[in-house]
């Protein structure tokens, strides 16, 4: 079980708004997070991953405290090691697709399996600049999956994929998530997206001003 109860200013330099969320995510579940632009969906994922610090709050993952502002606990992103799919992919321009995977893991059969799922075997030697938008997005997903994360945070992860590719990829990913017991949080701005995939959905409303 993952418990998140945080308060985070969305813009440190102004009083634009505050993200406040108290939510539980059952272990192995898939949660869709949606809401208007600027509501703080990406910020929530970054706070959970340890990439952004909230003003106050707690994050508990499987009875381990990742964050407790009152007790001064805050595990580093490396200690949390969440799989993270960035909205704009954050691929490394200097690495080929295969090098991305090797940077994350040295488990060769697992790399081979992931590349097959993402249909990137024939593009393994290509750097991101030579991949299409959809291929880059798939590589970002595969890189996050390479570390076999217990918690996977995905920020608009399927936006650049065509419907057929998206359906097949999600189906294959669901099998892996089940096999690994991965808890998945997927941010989407589209209320209709991922119907039948998620176990629960969370609406992040406009920030409190």
């Amino acid at each position, binding site marked *: 079980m993952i418990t998140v109860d945080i308060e985070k200013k969305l813009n440190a330099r102004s009083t634009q708004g505050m993200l406040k969320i108290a939510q539980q995510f059952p272990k192995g579940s898939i949660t869709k997070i949606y809401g208007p632009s600027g509501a703080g969906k990406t910020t929530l994922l970054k706070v959970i991953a340890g990439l952004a610090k909230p003003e106050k709050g707690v994050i508990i993952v499987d009875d381990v405290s990742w964050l407790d502002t009152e007790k001064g606990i805050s595990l580093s*992103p490396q200690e949390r090691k969440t799989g*993270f799919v960035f909205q704009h992919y954050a691929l490394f321009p200097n690495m080929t697709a295969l090098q991305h995977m090797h940077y994350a893991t040295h488990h060769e059969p697992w790399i081979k399996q992931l590349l097959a799922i993402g249909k990137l075997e024939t593009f393994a030697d290509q750097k991101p600049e030579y991949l299409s938008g959809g291929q880059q997005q798939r590589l970002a997903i595969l890189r996050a999956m390479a570390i076999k994360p217990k918690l996977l945070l995905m920020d608009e992860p399927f936006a650049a994929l065509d419907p057929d590719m998206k359906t097949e990829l999600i189906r294959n990913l669901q099998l892996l998530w089940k096999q690994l017991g991965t808890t998945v949080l997927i941010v989407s701005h589209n209320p209709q997206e991922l119907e039948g995939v998620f176990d629960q959905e969370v609406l992040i409303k406009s920030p409190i001003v």
Partner: protein
Amino acid sequence: MDLSPIFLTLKLAAITTVLLLSIGLPIARWLSKSRSIFKLIIEAIITMPLVLPPSVLGFYLLLAFSPQHGIGKWLRDVFDIQLVFSFPGLILASVIYSLPFMIGPIKSALQQLSPSLAQASYTLGKSERQTFFHVLLPNIRSSVLTAATLTFAHTLGEFGVVLMIGGNIPGVTRVASIAVYDAVENQDYAAANVYSLILFIITFITVISVFVFNKYKAKSPLE
């Protein structure tokens, strides 16, 4: 024709560049991260040699490392090291004087990289050091090359600071720029011309090589 000033200059420039690469990279990384008043002050101090007259910097280094008092006296008494009028003293002065030429381009390049690159690496469990060497550094290669070249070329042309702390000791501190000055003082224009021409050619080759290496990467070799 005594070519030792040219070799001494090349030796000084090469050592300064290697030393500055090893200390400049971590400093540039540190400065490129979130800003604070303390960092701004450090950055201002590092940038000072760009605008300060070299003779002023040289004068204060001469005072600081004079074996009669202060740090210079301590270095001589404890380690038997004398920095003024010595080659190690020239290296120290050159490192301080060329610091902004190494750190400036690298810091700017690091700041232009998307923060999500480092963040993606952290979420894969990679440390700061692994992230720096495997993700950040390879993606700012052209800027590192520019910084190293600028540092090398700048050290070749040092005069004021080198003269103040090193003087003009043949084979020890008499670098090419001082040899040119010395030759002109002695009205030996032929020797001054040879030294100047060699410096000109070395500097031109250094700068043009950056243009060629960065042809497709940067808009300008000074980027």
